[in-house]
């Protein structure tokens, strides 16, 4: 696929005219999916997808187009050139963009991570027997994902990786659930069966009758999977410099006044593990590590080159949306075995669900508890709790009410598949909170 990309990119570059600049990129996947319900197969199939994107700059005017490609170099060259013709036709009529970012020369990169994956036709037989006797709903996704880009200054990057994930929910007869994700790059049948059995063991905890707790403020432990969902919110009207400049960020207060989060809270972009490309769609390479919030203080935001030009700040080569691509939240001092003891009396939340800013400028997030959530007394689990709504501000729960974080940051893989199969994920610890507001 890399050879196809280089050939196609080169053919496109041969077409540029004087005063034109061009970015060409491809992305795609070959993914096998199996959807499960009741530990049986609901739907299954394979998706092969390949997209070519072209961004043309002529003078200070910009237009771009992308299209599905067939994988046939001759056909796809025709498609690409047709799109370039369409773009050229409209570009003169567009307004000038004073913040246009021109391509730059630089050091390219090529990283290909090969794995050992199950054959699609063998997948069901490998997965289902270990689920037997349980009610399981979930999705298997496996295969190669890839992306590359090239600009008219000759800079070129390529990244591909083989990954798989089985993301699933186990369900009791009383409709209580345990969530788990088995993800890696090399299939190991024995490791899978052990992991599945571990999840089934956890399900037994959910067989105890659930209790309903009243709305109010509770000492709370949120496990890494739940914290990961909160960290995701920082990529949506959070750490983006453009969002702050345009009055659309929960972190505006940290920029404009002395608002701070807890000393226990530190967040950075960290590409050192190589699970995601360090280059953005314009081929710019982000720093390997960039502290965003350090010990509660806003140290850096994510700044794309366009934002940098518009607001006269320095770029750190963020992507267009200025979201985190390799988030890493620092661990704290709480050991795994001390979580319940330190929580003492309160709620233990394994997962959260459907988060949204309820007051973005105020930093307030609402959402639901989901899956394995428990009431804890005297440092011991008493019973699962029925789902509760929370509505609280990051300036409270990641601020003065954050007591500690666990001493390990756990990897929570990105298993999203909206615009193609995701890769990478969020590293974060669990957090112990003095108080967390449950409202309904």
């Amino acid at each position, binding site marked *: 696929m890399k050879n196809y990309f280089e050939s196609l990119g080169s053919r496109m570059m041969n077409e540029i005219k004087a005063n034109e600049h061009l970015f060409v990129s491809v992305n795609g996947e070959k993914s096998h999916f199996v959807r499960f*319900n009741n530990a*049986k197969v609901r739907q299954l199939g*394979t998706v092969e*997808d390949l997209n070519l994107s072209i961004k043309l700059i002529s003078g200070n005017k910009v237009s771009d187009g992308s299209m599905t490609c067939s994988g046939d170099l001759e056909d796809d060259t*025709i498609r690409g050139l047709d799109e370039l013709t369409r773009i050229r036709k409209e570009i003169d009529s567009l307004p000038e963009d004073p913040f246009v970012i021109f391509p730059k020369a630089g050091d390219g990169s090529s990283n290909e991570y090969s794995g050992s994956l199950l054959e699609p036709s063998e997948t069901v037989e490998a997965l289902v027997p270990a689920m037997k006797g349980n009610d399981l709903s979930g999705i298997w996704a496996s295969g190669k994902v890839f992306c590359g880009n090239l600009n008219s200054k000759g800079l070129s990057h390529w990244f591909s990786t083989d990954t798989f994930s089985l993301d699933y929910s186990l369900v009791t007869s009383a409709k209580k659930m345990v969530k788990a994700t088995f993800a890696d790059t090399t299939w190991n049948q024995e490791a899978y069966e052990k992991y599945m059995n571990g999840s089934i063991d956890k399900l037994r905890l959910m067989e105890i009758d659930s209790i309903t707790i009243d709305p109010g403020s509770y000492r709370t432990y949120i496990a890494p999977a739940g914290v990961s969902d909160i960290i995701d919110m920082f990529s949506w009207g959070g750490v983006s410099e453009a969002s702050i400049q345009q009055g659309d960020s929960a972190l505006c207060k940290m920029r404009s006044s002395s608002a701070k989060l807890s000393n226990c809270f530190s967040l950075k972009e960290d590409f050192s593990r190589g699970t995601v490309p360090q280059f953005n769609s314009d081929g710019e390479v982000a720093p390997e590590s960039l502290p965003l919030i350090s010990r509660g203080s806003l140290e850096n935001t994510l700044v794309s080159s366009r934002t940098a030009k518009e607001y006269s700040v320095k770029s750190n080569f963020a992507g267009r949306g200025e979201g985190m691509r390799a988030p890493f939240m620092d661990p704290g001092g709480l050991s795994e075995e001390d979580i319940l003891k330190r929580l003492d009396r309160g709620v233990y939340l394994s997962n959260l669900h459907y988060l949204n800013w309820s007051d973005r400028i105020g930093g307030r997030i609402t*959402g639901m508890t989901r899956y394995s959530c428990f009431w804890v007394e005297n440092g011991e689990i008493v019973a699962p709790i029925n789902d509760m709504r929370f509505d609280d501000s990051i300036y409270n729960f990641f601020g003065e009410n954050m007591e500690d974080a666990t001493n390990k940051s756990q990897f929570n893989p990105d298993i999203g598949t909206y615009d193609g199969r995701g890769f990478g994920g969020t590293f974060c610890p669990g957090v112990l909170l003095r108080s967390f507001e449950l409202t309904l």
Partner: protein
Amino acid sequence: MRHHPLINLNSQKNKYTINMKNFNLKSILNKLDVKADWVGLRLLKESTTWRVIRDGNPQANTRHTSCGVMVEVLCNGQFAYFATPSITMESIQSAAERACKYAHAASRYSVHSFTSESRPANSGNYSSPYKMLQNDISPGRINEMMLKANDALKVSDKIVSVHAATGVVESSSHFVSSNGSDINQDFLYVGTSFSATSQDGNVIQKRTEEDKNQQVGMELLDENSIIEKCNTIGSQAVELLDADECPTEKMDLVLDSDQMMLQIHESIGHALEIDRILGDERNYAGWSFVNLDDFGTLQYGSNLLNVTFDPTISNEFASYGYDDGGMKADKEFIIKDGLLVRGLGGKESQIRSKVPGVANFRSSDWNRAPIDRMANLNVEPGSSTFDDIISSVERGVFMQTNRSWSIDDYRNKFQFGCEYAKLIENGKLTKTLKNPNYRAISTPFWNSLSMVGNNDTFDVYGTPYCGKGEPNQSIRVGHASPVCKFNDIEIFGGA
């Protein structure tokens, strides 16, 4: 060996134009050599164009064209698919063979053993209504209108950021199946999005209009009405800076149609999708508080509540002739006089659940298999005028335009926030309120419905961002509703 493209890549007019009429999908289907109980081919070409101006400068002039074939087979009672962007006889043959292999391998573990009954045979066409096509307004002219919209939004120095965008989607699909379906559907969707953010010290407010997506032509882009609308959005964004915080108390809630859209979507639509009730979605979007035996028995709302699945409303975003399983789409009552009577499930779900459903087995693109989606789900108009509703409220809040949404995985406990509100005191709209929110539980909320607005209060909205499914799919839905009043709701303000 190079495969021969089946689409007309070399036509004089545009080499990448897929002429759906010239492309004989049926002939390909007939030539396929696979041992399957049923085969379906769905060819989709969809082109999405965005033109965006922010703060007086172009932010995007971008187009994405998605094109490929979804090959579905049924073997031993199990469906399987292979989605390929390579539209050649060889690729489609290979895709069908591999899908058959998957289906055979999985058939001993099937959730349900289907027959071709779940893919009804239908033939027909559908086309969106329009007066002007995309090319009837030049890219330069659209940019010019969006620039003027930016100017109109910036009504004051207190406006710190403005945004205006136009999105146009041209979509054509052709579905053929081995049991005789042959369906062509052409869609034209046009939508606009406008917003203004105001700031005064640490107070920041935002006003938007972005869910007015419709099946319509480029005639939607009328400069005068855009400028008038943007002036209002900008003025209200400034007005909110000095508005009172929404009070925290239980009182009556009146929702405008643009917030009813979200209310219907989250607390009726998703709850009634039969695949959710059957548990398909439990690992992602969630389950439902509704059980299969609730159909025909559950009083979902007050007797004023009438909800329809209606793919026949001209211009509504998710109108269509047939779903992606080939079922003909007709208007059906889902909730009648408050009683739950029918589910939102396509043919597969109807067979599995034995609950009456609708034609809503839909996919977001050529590379996703169809699942139950809500499409157009509307609250039918009642008999109250807007003045009747407001004058009936002693103390309450009238809310417009969603800005925050969250609901649990069973679709029970929701919390929604709006951009703009008015206090209602003694039957009159009085002060403007900022940061209005409310929370409730679905069926008690709908049973508190006490007044339903008439046709004059009825408006049609739509969004392309309904997320669901594994693998994930974001799909178009439409929601139309009158203004509605709910009694004694928990209302509260911002941080």
